[in-house]
């Protein structure tokens, strides 16, 4: 009950903030009164002023997400809109700031000066939507390369294999004569380049700029230099994927670092806008492929928020919520075990901790596979519940030669896993690593991110909490049945690699605590519906409006900003990926440390490139 009161209070807090904004900036700030929308629309000219006021005076000091929407054909002026979600670190809902700019000559003032965490997100908005940010220190493409034609998220931009604006495609049924896309659009002819761009004698200007921007003492071709620019990657600088860092070194000390990414980019957002709402669910699995269950939940939350705007909406049943929390917390444990394993790989403890982590992960994945049908690409959550109830037994059926059958009772399996096996695995990790002198020597005091920086750079999840900010979406803006569950928000205060390691152990222990409370709920609710509303709807109706669904993922706050125009498909679908935004602070953490520490610092952030590049 107390939680409900709290939510009501914080909601008025946002109303107060908007009132104060309107009073302070009369004429420059107006309420967003479109149906299903919230927040305020700010005059572009005074955006920086308003943002500073919001951060310093109103207390919304944390910029969670900054993204752009193209409203082509939705209003007379066809504007591009930038949407900023700011939060109070005490908890509560978002104060949403919006700024509009015309499509031709789209320009907005940059907010990097107010929130450094907007850096990559504004670059992404420039890259994908073509909004120029005045005052941005490094405005260039971030996910695409320089020879890319246009800004793909604009509604009038069509991809090479473009077939139709939205799915389902008419060519599939009832006259579905199959053809392969590359037959219509053969390799070599499927790329468009910007005007004046040619591959003859092509020399990458972006690469040149990258090296020139890196601070060097003298020109690198003169041998008498004291600074060297090193390109680390993109072939696995550590064990995290195709990621590259341009590191500027003074001796072995890092002077500057710039992440280069996009090697795995597939424009998840654009795919999401072609898809129907439900189509996106399996695509979210592919973001952070370690945590597909949590990704599913975040997306389900966003769409349920939108559906709640309609009249006939039934929230998920209690059993569905309990199953969701079970899945998500198991995901957190497996992610953290593996994250610690990879961090130790980066530190040179080659594969022993990781392999121990993978044993436990296998056991969790066996359960996921039995429940959802897939180990990693779970596609398990639906709007209003989950796809299937928990299976009676975790049991294989022999279908192939040499198949070995295992058979466990599901609840017995979960009890044994949660009460015995996983806590022991966490203790084992603790015994193996925590007091190890090599680890303490290499981790303590390295890669420090101060509390202020962590907030300013929009760091999220374990990175934020290891810097002394006890901010956890499960408590700050509770969703699902977390208000009923007892757990503490883990927090550490030094902000170094070691604390980011320790906080993962803490969080796993809290997850075990939650799971122990979930088990009796699962027993009690056995047989109750796991899905609310009518089943069998592959195309649920989603009312027009906007929603920002966020979930506390193992890697940090995962947010889905979804705009619906009332049709079958999302008008805008944006993923605020924690891995991507946590990288904004990488340079800050690495400066002044040795080059050998970079990999360890990167490992301590715990990124997955499927989510960084999207």
């Amino acid at each position, binding site marked *: 009950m107390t939680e409900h009161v709290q939510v009501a209070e914080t909601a008025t807090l946002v109303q107060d903030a908007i009132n104060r904004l309107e009073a302070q900036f009369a004429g420059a700030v107006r309420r967003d009164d479109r149906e299903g929308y919230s927040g305020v629309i700010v005059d572009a000219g005074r955006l920086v002023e308003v943002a500073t006021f919001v951060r310093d005076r109103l207390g919304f000091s944390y910029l969670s997400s900054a993204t752009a929407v193209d409203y082509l054909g939705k209003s007379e002026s066809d504007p591009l809109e930038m949407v900023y979600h700011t939060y109070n670190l005490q908890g509560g809902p978002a104060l949403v700031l919006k700024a509009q700019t015309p499509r031709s000559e789209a320009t907005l003032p940059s907010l990097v000066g107010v929130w450094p965490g907007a850096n990559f997100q504004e670059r992404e908005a420039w890259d994908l939507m073509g909004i120029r940010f005045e005052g941005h220190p490094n405005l260039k493409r971030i996910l695409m390369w320089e020879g890319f034609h246009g800004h793909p998220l604009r509604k009038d931009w069509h991809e090479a294999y473009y077939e139709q604006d939205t799915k389902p495609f008419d060519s599939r049924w009832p006259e579905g004569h199959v053809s392969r896309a590359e037959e219509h659009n053969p390799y070599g002819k499927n790329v468009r380049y910007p005007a004046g761009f040619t591959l003859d004698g092509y020399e990458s200007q972006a690469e040149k700029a990258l090296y020139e921007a890196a601070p060097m003492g003298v020109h690198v071709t003169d041998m008498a230099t004291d600074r060297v620019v090193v390109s680390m990657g993109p072939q696995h600088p550590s064990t995290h994927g195709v990621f590259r860092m341009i590191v500027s070194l003074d001796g072995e000390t890092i002077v500057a670092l710039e992440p280069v990414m996009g090697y795995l980019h597939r424009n998840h957002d654009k795919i999401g806008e072609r898809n129907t709402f439900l189509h996106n669910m399996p695509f979210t699995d592919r973001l952070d492929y370690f945590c597909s269950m949590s990704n599913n939940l975040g997306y389900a939350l966003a769409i349920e928020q939108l559906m709640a705007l309609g009249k006939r909406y039934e929230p998920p049943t209690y059993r569905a919520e309990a199953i969701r929390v079970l899945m998500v917390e198991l995901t957190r444990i497996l992610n953290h075990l593996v994250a610690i394993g990879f961090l130790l790989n980066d530190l040179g403890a080659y594969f022993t901790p990781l392999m121990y982590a993978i044993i436990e992960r296998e056991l969790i994945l066996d359960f996921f596979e039995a429940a959802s049908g897939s180990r990693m690409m779970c596609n398990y959550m639906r709007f209003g519940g989950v796809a299937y109830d928990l299976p009676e037994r975790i049991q294989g059926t022999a279908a192939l030669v040499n198949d070995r059958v295992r058979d466990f009772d599901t609840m017995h399996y979960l009890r044994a896993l949660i009460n015995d096996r996983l806590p022991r695995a966490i203790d084992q990790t603790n015994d193996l690593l925590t007091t190890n002198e090599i680890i303490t020597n290499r981790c303590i005091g390295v890669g420090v991110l101060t509390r202020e920086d962590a907030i300013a750079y929009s760091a999220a999840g374990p990175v934020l909490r290891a810097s002394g900010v006890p901010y956890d979406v499960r408590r700050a803006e509770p969703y699902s049945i977390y208000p009923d569950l007892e757990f503490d928000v883990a927090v550490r205060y030094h902000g170094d690699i070691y604390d980011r390691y320790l906080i993962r152990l803490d969080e796993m222990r809290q997850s075990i605590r939650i799971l122990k409370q979930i088990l009796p709920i699962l027993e009690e609710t056995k047989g109750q519906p796991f899905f609310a509303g009518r089943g069998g709807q*592959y195309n649920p109706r989603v009312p027009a409006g906007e929603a920002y669904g966020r979930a506390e993922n193992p890697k940090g706050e995962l947010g889905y900003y979804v705009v619906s125009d009332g049709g079958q498909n999302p008008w805008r679908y944006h993923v605020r990926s924690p891995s991507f935004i946590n990288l904004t602070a990488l340079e800050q953490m690495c400066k002044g440390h040795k080059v050998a520490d970079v990999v360890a610092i990167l490992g301590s952030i715990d990124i997955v490139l499927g989510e960084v590049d999207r």
Partner: protein
Amino acid sequence: MYGSGIVRGLGVTLKHFVNTYLEDIRWGFRRHVPDEAFPLRQGLEARGIFTVEYPEEKIATPERFRFIPFLVVDNYDHPERPGHDWCTSCGICAKACPPQCIWIVRGTNPETGRPVPEPAEFYIDIDICMNCGLCAEFCPFDAIKMDHDYELASYDRTGAHIFNKQRLSKEFRYWQSIAPTRAAEEAQARGGWEHKDVLKQREREARAKAPASGGEA
């Protein structure tokens, strides 16, 4: 004492090392453990080596496991309609498919030109299929199901990876064998082991025969 943390960690690795051999002794140093031991070695009790030696050993997949879809057809020895498609070409799977890898040509009666409830052609491009299982989940006729056979490596990408109706079709018996519980549950929901339309037809016939008693079938 400096170094005690390392020693403590090495204790953990030593335990794993010893456990591995204890397990081996337990199963008599056999390269592949007997079937009854497999759940112990690959389960909650596992202490030693956790590796499965594919392809000599494979973990049997659970019922809900999903790989490329297949089309259910009546058993080839079915008395009335052997090998008949369960699919009615309603197109829901093609619409629910996120990467749009399903192509269906609706069947038509060659004489009248009217659509009939069966597919003339049915294609799935398995290179595009993302194994999400939404087609099977939303099929109102239990006619498309996810397969368990994940060993599909082939030498030719361009020709061999578009599955046609013939390649996709599998007997209903096969579905019963890979997912006995679910097949039984679905049959219960339909009201019998046969296809929905067959059951309806029978019910209609039974009603026509014995209007007074009704619903005996």
